[in-house]
């Protein structure tokens, strides 16, 4: 059920429009905000691989995002590990963490899965708090520079933005490939009817675990981009509100559409940023929560999902 990807002409148009917006983004908004948007976009794509294509709602994805961010910044700032190695280790951390968490969490489904991922994410959150010597506790870890990649300094915000965009595009492309592969088809079958998938002889748990690890790893990649882009990582990165945020972004954009979550992240981040400059101040959640509640009540397919859903009136919940 992934026809709504490139399958329709509309899908291609949406993808092209998004790409154009993404290319022009640093001209439209403040470049570092643009970096945030793209990093969150990739995070949401990674999350959507799990929710949209596998049917698993993780409420603890911040643990990969924030965790990998911590590992990267700590290695660079405290252990003087070279930049590329630190990034690789950070992503490896997210992958291993996803493997462990996934192995525990896939034992249950639905709401239990959500709660278990949430609780495990809290576990990491508390460790991040307690190990203040490494994580700086509530003060976070700051980087004095973004370092270099292949000999190119990443200090320039615009240059860094396009590097981030390239990584995010690659990540999204990978997700597209996964989703459209036979493996993705099995995931879809599992989402639609798990019993039938089992009956067909698929080792459902193994597929779920692989999807979980891929999603967690990619979320880790996004988290590293965010942390390096902002030159800091802190507790809010591993907080459950961040997990909630990526859920909101994905659903707002449209789950199961790959590009929807990117649009969702863009809308969410920019709206949040600009609303915070109005009289509402730090109570942006009134606005964001209302939009999300309306989204859950009225257009569950999300913005991009609604745009794509012309003829194919799927009875998807």
């Amino acid at each position, binding site marked *: 059920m992934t026809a709504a990807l490139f399958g329709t002409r509309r899908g291609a148009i949406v993808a092209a429009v998004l790409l154009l917006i993404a290319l022009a983004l640093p001209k439209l908004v403040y470049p570092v905000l643009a970096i945030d948007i793209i990093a969150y976009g990739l995070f949401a794509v990674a999350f959507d691989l799990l929710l949209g294509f596998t049917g698993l709602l993780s409420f603890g994805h911040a643990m990969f995002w924030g965790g990998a961010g911590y590992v990267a910044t700590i290695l660079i700032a405290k252990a003087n590990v070279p930049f590329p190695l630190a990034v690789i280790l950070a992503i490896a951390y997210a992958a291993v963490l996803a493997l462990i968490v996934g192995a525990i969490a896939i034992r249950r489904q*639905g709401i239990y899965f959500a*709660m278990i991922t949430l609780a495990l994410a809290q576990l990491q959150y508390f460790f991040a708090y307690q190990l203040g010597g490494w994580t700086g506790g509530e003060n976070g870890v700051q980087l004095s520079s973004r370092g270099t990649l292949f000999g190119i300094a990443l200090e320039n915000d615009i240059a860094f933005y396009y590097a981030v965009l390239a990584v995010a595009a690659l990540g999204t492309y990978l997700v597209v490939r996964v989703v459209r592969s036979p493996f993705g088809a099995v995931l879809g079958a599992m989402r639609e009817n798990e019993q039938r998938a089992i009956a067909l002889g698929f080792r459902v748990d193994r597929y779920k675990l692989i999807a979980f690890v891929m999603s967690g790893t990619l979320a880790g990649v996004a988290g590293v981009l965010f942390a390096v882009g902002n030159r800091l990582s802190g507790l809010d990165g591993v907080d459950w509100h961040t997990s909630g945020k990526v859920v909101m972004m994905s659903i707002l954009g449209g789950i199961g559409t790959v590009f929807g979550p990117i649009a969702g992240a863009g809308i969410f981040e920019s709206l949040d940023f600009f609303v915070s400059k109005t009289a509402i101040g730090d109570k942006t959640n*009134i606005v*964001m929560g209302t939009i999300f509640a309306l989204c859950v*009540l009225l257009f569950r397919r999300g913005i991009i999902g609604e745009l794509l859903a012309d003829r194919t009136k799927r009875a998807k*919940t």
Partner: protein
Amino acid sequence: MALGLSVIFGMLRIVNFAHGAMFMLGAFVAYYGFQLVHMPFYAAIIVAPLIVAAFGLAIEVLFLRRLYRLDPLYGLLFTFALVLIIEDSMRLVAGSVGSPYETPAGLDFAVNIGFALFPAYRLFAIGFAMVVCLVVWLILERTPLGARIRAATEAPVLVRALGIDTQLLVSLTFAAGVALAALGGVLAAPIQNVEPTMGDKIIINTFAIVVIGGLGSIGGSVITGFALGLLQTLGAVIFPAFNDTLIFMLMIIVLLIRPSGLFGAPASAK
């Protein structure tokens, strides 16, 4: 102690992020009740849950009802949105810092319980919470109404076929759950500061209790809740640094050994 209260929330079968927010609203109703009309604590303990329950009922009827036929995850997501809206709205109304709520008259003394002085109010709150737990458990397990509620949440179609208005039952159950959360908030108000994020701190622990205790057994939830409360109190003394993580560690262990939770008998066993 805080866990003793949170047990109450875990009992109802509705997974509701907003329970923490309802807990907070209960405390705020008590606070504003006192500020505006000098409503005494003993009145607040009844009035505040009713007011918040009415609010919860409105949300159930207006919004949540539309989501029942969908994946329950949408209900979870909607209540998450509610938390964000309610919390930030309260921050807008009441400020972020919070306000004190006086210890109720008649309970503002300390009792000598052998080895130390203990504030009378705390004893009252613990006792009151236990009584409420017991009453709710009795209603659910031992009365025809309780039987219907359990049936309606487990097999709504079947129950409807028997001519029982499940919609009404579900709404009432939801309202009762909200009222219990609000009651917890009122009981906590004199101990803590009344502030908009006070619900956040308990909701995740509540989730863990539900997972550990398993659903289907209210008694299991209560026992788990109290056992964990005890464990955390002891843990605070033995290794305080990792006290917070204890509950989650336990949850992982339980899940590995008994995926359905300690007291969560397989669906058919009851």
